[in-house]
């Protein structure tokens, strides 16, 4: 910690980044692909590819719910949208073990069940990026929160450490060893700096009620239900009266809610005590037409169809949080906006990856063969995380197409394949030289991703030859992004393969045993 402010910041930057770098890499990569969560989920359920939104979707679905779950305490219906053409319902059912919820996917045109293969879809990547998997949820969220706070420290101290922000803003010098890694790290960080700061800070905000519960505890005396009712407008429904009364038609309620929001569309419906005299219907506004994801809902009397109350969108504190969470989720603004978020997210992923690689490269440069177990450990972890995670994610998608559709516990097995692939990728660099490990893992990741569209063509009827002419960009996009990322990994693998031929290392050749990847 000697040597002035900038040096101490450099120390802070190095260690706050390195210690949590591998977790951050996984969070960044799985989080980045989660911008396309509905698209990935749809891609992973080929049985739904023919479904289309229909004008009377809400009526059809609620009619079906009356036979599916007549006695449930509540139904939650997500209406079809441009990104997800089917209706998703789930409802409370005391006979359903564990979660006490049942779920189904319904056809908007008929209300009938759409049988689809058992999979977690894109939700797996999405939940992984903030609560991991196979780790108790609360523990995992605390771990992610801490890592995100370290990330914020690393970004801020990195800005201080970076002496030549403006002079080097456009500078990337490839094939120059350690210098290239530093350039790459700085470029990935600086060019999308507003995004990195935003995504890290808002990420911490999404978990703030867990990390900083004291305000709520003090103001609401530990009564969380009162808190949700006050802030999010979600009151607990009254108990059933036992007097059966049919539900009022949903169409006029949707129209009235839409009118209340100045024409915005409803996205979700909750029916409490359906079929009872105490029934209420809550209509939620879609959250992809504005920055804030703060809930806006209109509540109706389920028997008369009269509007009872409207809430959301008017409380400054809740709205501020809504905008921050909205910025983090990036569901607004359409496909181009999401593509830009995705690109910035990839730059964040590259920033973390180059950061941890840079540390190892520097150590090798400095110490050469004398570098100890610490350096070797970082090198192995780098390959395991940066090379291994893309393999695991691609394997998950492969498992989705290759596991038998009728297999028992199919969704669980897809996740098992993900972790088995990642586990093998984590052990592999222990058995290979550092460079071979990089080449083989990057190469395998590239292969799995580049062949994914071919696998898709062999196993479904919605491959690129069909989806591109039909303009089904949600489905074609998954294949195309797989091709693009596979190409990038293949390029990286090739770069690693050629690395030692570079002459600029000559003056330090005596020290070098394990060459750095992708120079």
């Amino acid at each position, binding site marked *: 910690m000697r040597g002035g402010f900038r040096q101490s910041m450099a120390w802070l930057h190095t260690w706050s980044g390195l210690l949590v770098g591998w977790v951050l890499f996984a969070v960044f990569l799985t989080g980045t692909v989660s911008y396309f969560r509905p698209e990935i989920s749809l891609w992973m359920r080929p049985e739904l590819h023919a479904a289309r939104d229909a004008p009377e979707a809400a009526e059809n679905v609620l009619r079906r719910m009356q036979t599916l779950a007549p006695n449930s305490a509540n139904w939650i219906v997500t209406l079809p949208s441009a990104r997800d053409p089917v209706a998703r319902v789930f409802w409370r059912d005391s006979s359903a073990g564990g979660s006490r919820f049942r779920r189904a996917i319904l056809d908007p045109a008929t209300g009938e069940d759409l049988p689809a293969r058992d999979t977690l879809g894109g939700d797996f990547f999405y939940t992984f990026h903030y609560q991991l998997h196979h780790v108790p949820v609360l523990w995992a969220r605390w771990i992610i929160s801490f890592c995100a706070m370290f990330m914020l420290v690393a970004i801020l101290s990195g800005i201080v450490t970076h002496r030549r922000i403006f002079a080097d803003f456009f500078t990337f010098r490839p094939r120059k060893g350690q210098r290239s890694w530093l350039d790459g790290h700085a470029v990935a960080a600086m060019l999308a700096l507003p995004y990195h700061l935003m995504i890290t800070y808002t990420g911490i905000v999404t978990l703030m009620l867990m990390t900083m519960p004291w305000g709520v505890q003090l103001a609401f005396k530990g009564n969380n239900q009162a808190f949700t009712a006050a802030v999010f407008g979600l009151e607990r429904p009254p108990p059933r009266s036992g007097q059966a009364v049919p539900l009022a038609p949903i169409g006029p309620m949707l129209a009235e809610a839409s009118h209340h929001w100045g024409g915005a569309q409803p996205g979700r419906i909750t029916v409490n005590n359906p079929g009872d005299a105490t029934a209420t219907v809550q209509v939620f506004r879609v959250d992809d037409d504005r920055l804030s994801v703060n809930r806006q809902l209109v509540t109706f009397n389920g028997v008369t169809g009269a509007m009872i109350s409207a809430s959301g969108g008017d409380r400054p504190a809740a709205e501020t949080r809504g905008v921050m969470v909205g910025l983090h989720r990036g569901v607004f603004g359409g496909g181009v906006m999401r593509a830009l978020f995705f690109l*910035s997210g990839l730059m964040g992923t590259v920033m973390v990856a180059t950061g941890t690689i840079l540390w190892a490269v520097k150590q090798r440069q400095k110490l050469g063969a004398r570098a100890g177990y610490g350096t070797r450990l970082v090198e192995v972890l780098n390959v395991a995380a940066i090379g291994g995670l893309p393999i695991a994610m691609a394997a998950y998608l492969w498992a989705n197409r290759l596991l038998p559709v009728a297999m028992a516990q199919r969704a669980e097995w897809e996740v098992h394949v993900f972790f088995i692939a990642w586990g093998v990728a984590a052990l592999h660099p222990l058995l290979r030289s550092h460079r071979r490990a990089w080449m083989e893992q990057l190469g395998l990741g590239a292969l799995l991703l580049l062949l994914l569209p071919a696998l898709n063509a062999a196993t479904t009827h919605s491959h690129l030859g069909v989806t591109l002419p039909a303009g089904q960009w949600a489905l074609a996009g998954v294949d195309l992004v797989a091709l693009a990322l596979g190409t990038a990994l293949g390029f990286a693998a090739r770069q690693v393969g050629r690395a030692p031929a570079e002459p600029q290392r000559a003056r330090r050749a005596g020290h070098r045993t394990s060459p750095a990847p992708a120079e």
Partner: protein
Amino acid sequence: MIPLALALAYAGFTALCLAMERHYGEVFGLRRVPAWRALALRITGWALLALSLPSCVVAREWAMGVVLWCGVLSAAVLPLVLLLPYAPRLAAWLAPALPPIAALLLTLGAR
């Protein structure tokens, strides 16, 4: 509107980049930028970046437009930085070429 915003941002960043001796040298082979030219490039660069903001706001209103602009700036400068070491002249010539192409596409699309 978004392609135009991207093109303007790319041109703006290229101008700012060429106002620096190191990058001017990469493209034109001369390490010295005449002072008046550096100043002109700098003014043009900032002006073009500023112009890409209204394009974003027209495309997505104010609240989302500003967010979009941040994304557009990052997305526009990335290809420039990656292209510079490999094809510096191409990187520089794309700058005056892209905005007219984007504007042309915009008018064709509007028709």
